[in-house]
Structure formats: structure tokens, C-alpha cells
């Protein structure tokens, strides 16, 4: 088709525009990214630009003169009747989103605007169609909608803020957790959610965000609109613009109040269990000498016993009673512990724990080798540390039913810029299997079947971490060389609540 012919079809007559103007229009049409197509009132294609070729895949000479129906998937061909009816009545169809088919058969999303073409007399002779491939936009929209739906339906609070801590977005979960409607909190400072005594955290959070760092599973407390304290685990990630610059932060907060409550109850339960375990061991230690004392007094009171024998009986009874009071001083004293930290020599504390388990160690043919090198006292809650070492020692005993060696060493060490003590408790027991080692610090995980509560090591970890320390375990089940070593690090100065990712412990396999 020649240019004048096309012009005649398009504009009714060839001479409507100057040559320069026509070239100008033709250049626009040719260079357009959109498909620009014209067709007559029977739906026969009469012109086809470069954009149409790119989008639909047909060359102009293979499609001009063909029916527009070739571009419409079979199930949507009824649309054409509707379109032609509108055009005939002089109406325009704008941004009609539908599906069309490319030469290679691929269906794709398209947005079309169709306008009637009139001749000089105003008679409608055809239609121009401008079509834009919106596959990409559709995809973008879909993923945006999907993301928005996910954010909105999440139980977690999902909040975004700028680098000044001003809240930008606020989802349903945030509304539920903190009580604010989006319009009362968006534009406000995030500090409204942070209890006064923790506001220093925000400066640290913003500093990390600006540095592009992420904060994961940080457990802290926040405050709701009504002033209630919420225990939350938060993850904060930097938000970047398309240039990669950090422009704000997204914050996901999960309400862990219930979990915390359960954890506190479990810690209490384990304290009671530890107390029970130790009480049983202490009972054995105390009942034996008491039984001897009863026997000795009974013997001393018998007829016909010489004065010398009586003295002998009573002296022995006295030393047995001293044994009882020694045990009582060593062990029961800890239960008066009200929780305030005090300065102790850790080796004394560990020796006292060992003395509680003395009979059990003997009964299992376990020898104890302790090497203490801790001249400096450490400030701890004694009751808690007794519990930690009691749990670890009693695990070691359980691991050696056939006897073995329990080794305990304490050494002074420097870790993460802090002076502290490293205590290693190792046994020559059966070891922990590889698949279990990573789980031993999980609550309610036990390798002891019905005999274990599964919270001893978990509680030990809670207490060690509360002190700012770390606990880790290594184990080998290799025959002839099996055993488990628990390493505990306790800093001399209790660390302040540090913003770590909450995993102060690690598990690893021994070689």
C-alpha cells in the first residue's frame, strides 16, 4: 500500500496534511513503542506500524488485509462484534484491558484504546487501535497486590519507617499488636512504641540501618496505645531505593508474650525439678549419717557398755553430725538465694555441686578430675549457677552408666573483649548422636526417653545467657573415644543487654 493510499484510508483524502506534517506523523507512528493499527468497519487490518510488529510478531505485509480476528484468541472473538458495534456508533473505547495472541501463539495482556476514523463528511469508515503490551505491568501489579495482601493478612506487625524513625506504613497486624489505627500513627515517631527506658535502643537501631545492617530476632519490649507492655521479637531490615541507598527500615514485630510466659513457667518447673533432684541426692547424704547417729546413741544406751565404749560411740556420733551440718551448709544454703548476685569463687560452687552428687558418682564408678584455675571471684547468682552445673553434671553422670571419668576445668579467658571464665565439663560417656547435637538446647528435647524432662540444658542456656555468657556443646559417639564436653563462658562483668541476634550458643561436632 502506498502512502497516499494509506492517507486516503486514514484521513479520507490524501491532501489533508502538508507533506512535512504527514512525514512528521508517520515518524511518530513508526517510532511508537505502542502498536498502532487501523482497520475498516469489517475488521480488516489496513495499516500496521513497527510497534505492532514488535508486539504481535507479524510483518506488515503478512497481516495488512487480514482480519483483526487473527490477533484475538478464539474464546474472546465475540469482543470484536462488541468493539465494531461501538465504533460504528461513533464511540471510543479507552484503556480496554484484554488478552491478545501473538504470531507464535503466545497470549498476553494488552491495554487498547480504539477510536473511530471518520472521513471529511464525518462518516465513520474504520477504527484506529493503539495497543500496549502490559504483561510486565500486570506481573508487577500482581506481585505488588500479592505482597500487599500478605503484609495485610500477616499476624505479625509489619511497619516501615524512614531514617528519622518516622512511621510510613502500618499493617493490620501492627494495629492489632499496638492498638493504633494507621491514620493516627503514620507520620509519627516510632518512639511512641518504645518504653521510655528503652529509647536508647532506637538510636542503635537507626545507626545499624544506616550502615545497611539487619537486626534479627531481637527480643525486647514495646508499649501499646493503651500503655500495655508487649514482649516482642523484632527483625529490622534496611529498605533501599533503586540506587541501593538506604532510605528507611522495615520492621517485623511478633508478639512473644505467650511464649515468654510459657518459658518462664518452664524455667520455674525446671527449678523445681532441679531442686527435687538435688533434694533426693542431699537426702541420701544426710540420711546415712543420721542413721549411724541413731545406731550409735542406741548402742551407747545399752546395758553393760563400758565408759570407754560410750565415749567412743558419742565421739563418732558427733563427727557424723558434723558431716550432716557440712552438707547442709554446702547445699541448702543456695536455696536461700533470693536472686541477687554475689561474688563467689566458682570452683567452690562447682565442688559443692559435686559433693551433692558424690554418692551417685560413686555408685556409677565415675572418677572426678577437677582442675581449677580461677583465682578471681565472679559475680553471679549462685542459685542459678548451681542449677547450671547441677544440670550439666547430672547429664554427664547419666551418660556414663558403666562408669567413666568426669573432668572439670576452669580457666580464665578473654572473649569478645571481655574477661571471663571458661568452664569445660567433659565426660567419657556414650556421647550424643550427630543428628541430635544441634537440638540439645531446644526446650523439651531429650535423648533420655522418659527419664529426661528435656529442659535441663535449655534452662542452663537461659541462665548462662542471662548472665551474658555462652554455652556450647561438642560430642563424639565414636567407639572407644566417645564423650561429651560442655563449654561455658561467663564474663566477670555481666554484659548489658546486647543487641545480638539472640543466639549466644552454638552447637558443633567434635572431630
Amino acid at each position, binding site marked *: 500500500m502506498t502512502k497516499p493510499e494509506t492517507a486516503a484510508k486514514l484521513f479520507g483524502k490524501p491532501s489533508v496534511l502538508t507533506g512535512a506534517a504527514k512525514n512528521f506523523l508517520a515518524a511518530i507512528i513508526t517510532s511508537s513503542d505502542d502498536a498502532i493499527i487501523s482497520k475498516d468497519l469489517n475488521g480488516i487490518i489496513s495499516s500496521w506500524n513497527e510497534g505492532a510488529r514488535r508486539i504481535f510478531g507479524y510483518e506488515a505485509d503478512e497481516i495488512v488485509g487480514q482480519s483483526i480476528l487473527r490477533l484475538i484468541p478464539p474464546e474472546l472473538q465475540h469482543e470484536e462484534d462488541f468493539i465494531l458495534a461501538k465504533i460504528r456508533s461513533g464511540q471510543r473505547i479507552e484503556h480496554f484491558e484484554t488478552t491478545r495472541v501473538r504470531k507464535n501463539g503466545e497470549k498476553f495482556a494488552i491495554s487498547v484504546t480504539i477510536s473511530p476514523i471518520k472521513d471529511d463528511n464525518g462518516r465513520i469508515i474504520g477504527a484506529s487501535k493503539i495497543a500496549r503490551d502490559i504483561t510486565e505491568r500486570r506481573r508487577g501489579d500482581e506481585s505488588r497486590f500479592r505482597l500487599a495482601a500478605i503484609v495485610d493478612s500477616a499476624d505479625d506487625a509489619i511497619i516501615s519507617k524512614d531514617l528519622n524513625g518516622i512511621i510510613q506504613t502500618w499493617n493490620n497486624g501492627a494495629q492489632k499488636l499496638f492498638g493504633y489505627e494507621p491514620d493516627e500513627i503514620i507520620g509519627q515517631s516510632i518512639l511512641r512504641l518504645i518504653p521510655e527506658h528503652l529509647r536508647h535502643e532506637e538510636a542503635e537501631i537507626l545507626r545499624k540501618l544506616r550502615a545497611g545492617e539487619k537486626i534479627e530476632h531481637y527480643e525486647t519490649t514495646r508499649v501499646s496505645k493503651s500503655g500495655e507492655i508487649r514482649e516482642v521479637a523484632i527483625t529490622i531490615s534496611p529498605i533501599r531505593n533503586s540506587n541501593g541507598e538506604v532510605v528507611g527500615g522495615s520492621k517485623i514485630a511478633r508478639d512473644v508474650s505467650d511464649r515468654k510466659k510459657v518459658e518462664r513457667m518452664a524455667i520455674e518447673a525446671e527449678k523445681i525439678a532441679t531442686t527435687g533432684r538435688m533434694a533426693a*541426692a542431699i537426702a541420701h547424704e544426710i540420711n546415712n549419717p*543420721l*542413721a*549411724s547417729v541413731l545406731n550409735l546413741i542406741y*548402742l551407747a544406751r545399752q546395758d553393760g557398755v563400758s565408759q570407754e565404749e560410750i565415749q567412743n560411740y558419742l565421739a563418732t556420733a558427733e563427727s557424723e553430725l558434723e558431716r550432716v551440718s557440712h552438707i547442709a551448709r554446702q547445699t541448702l544454703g543456695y536455696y536461700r538465694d533470693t536472686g541477687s548476685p554475689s561474688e563467689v569463687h566458682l570452683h567452690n560452687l562447682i*565442688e559443692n555441686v559435686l559433693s551433692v552428687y*558424690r554418692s551417685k558418682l*560413686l*555408685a556409677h564408678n565415675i572418677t572426678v578430675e577437677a582442675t581449677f584455675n580461677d583465682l578471681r571471684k565472679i559475680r553471679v547468682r549462685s542459685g542459678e549457677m548451681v542449677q547450671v552445673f547441677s544440670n550439666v553434671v547430672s547429664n554427664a553422670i547419666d551418660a556414663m552408666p558403666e562408669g567413666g571419668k568426669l573432668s572439670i576445668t576452669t580457666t580464665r579467658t578473654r572473649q569478645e573483649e571481655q574477661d571471663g571464665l571458661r568452664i569445660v565439663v567433659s565426660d567419657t560417656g556414650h556421647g550424643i548422636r550427630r543428628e541430635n547435637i544441634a537440638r540439645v538446647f531446644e526446650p523439651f528435647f531429650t535423648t533420655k526417653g522418659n527419664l529426661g524432662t528435656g529442659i535441663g540444658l535449655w534452662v542452663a542456656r537461659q541462665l548462662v545467657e542471662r548472665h551474658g555468657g555462652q554455652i556450647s556443646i561438642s560430642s563424639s559417639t565414636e567407639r572407644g573415644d566417645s564423650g561429651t564436653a560442655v563449654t561455658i563462658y561467663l564474663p566477670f562483668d555481666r554484659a548489658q543487654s546486647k543487641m545480638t541476634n539472640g543466639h549466644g550458643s552454638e552447637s558443633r561436632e567434635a572431630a
Partner: protein
Amino acid sequence: MELPGSVIHLADEFSAPPSELQISDSDAEGGAAAQARVLVVDDERLLADTTAAILRRAGFQAKTAYEGFGALEMAASFRPDYLLTDIMMPAMNGVELAIAITQKYPATKILLISGQTGIADILADSRERGYEFPLLAKPAHPSKVVEALRRLKNE
């Protein structure tokens, strides 16, 4: 033990015999054939020795052992009418000893004595194997021990 840096061997230290008390067992020598024989077993030596002394005064012929295997050996020659044994002991516990004695010498009457609460599993295990023994709580007054043995005799 107070000095940091020292190496201690708990097992060695604690397994030393605690008792220097000499308790006469002369009564046992003069025992008539009619005297009932009691084997007293406890890893707490002082307790085993004083209990045996008390039983002799009460008219029993008593011998002591400080652990299960020694007790089994002694039972072969002593042929006790009664076994009075502690439960928590190294190597062989009191219930295992009681079962072994019952199997070898069915006529021997058993009395367990224990000061510990942590023996529920041992007792449950024994019941599962079809054995149930009377149990006295430690510390028991000596007259209660004598009384319990006499009651067993009349059963």
C-alpha cells in the same frame, strides 16, 4: 580442696573407709545354732557395722558386707536367714542383690532399707521382674529395724 589450681580425685578421697570405730562382734562367736543369721549390707560402713552390733545385742547372729558382690560371696558360707540391705550402692544395687539371693536361697527373707527418694525406678523394675520386697525408710530407729526383722520371722 580450697586452693584453686589443685587437682582433686573425689572418688579416691571419698571411697576411703570412714570408720575407725571398733565394734565388737564377740557376740557373734558365742551364738547358738538357734540364733537367726542376718547379713547386713550397706556401702556406708559405719552404718553396716553399728546395725550389725545392734542386731547381735538383740540376739541375732550378724555379719556385714559393704557391697553386693561381697555379700553374695559371704551368703554362700553364711547362709543368712535375713538379708538387710541398703538400695543405692555402687556396682550392684540392693534390689539386684535381693533378687540374686532370693533365687539362690529362696528361704532367705529380705528387708530393704533406703534413705533416698530416687529409687522409684529400681523398685518398679523389681516389681516388673516379679519381686516385691518390704522397705524401711532410712534413717530408721534401731528398735524399728529389730522389730521389722522379728515380724518377718513370724510371717
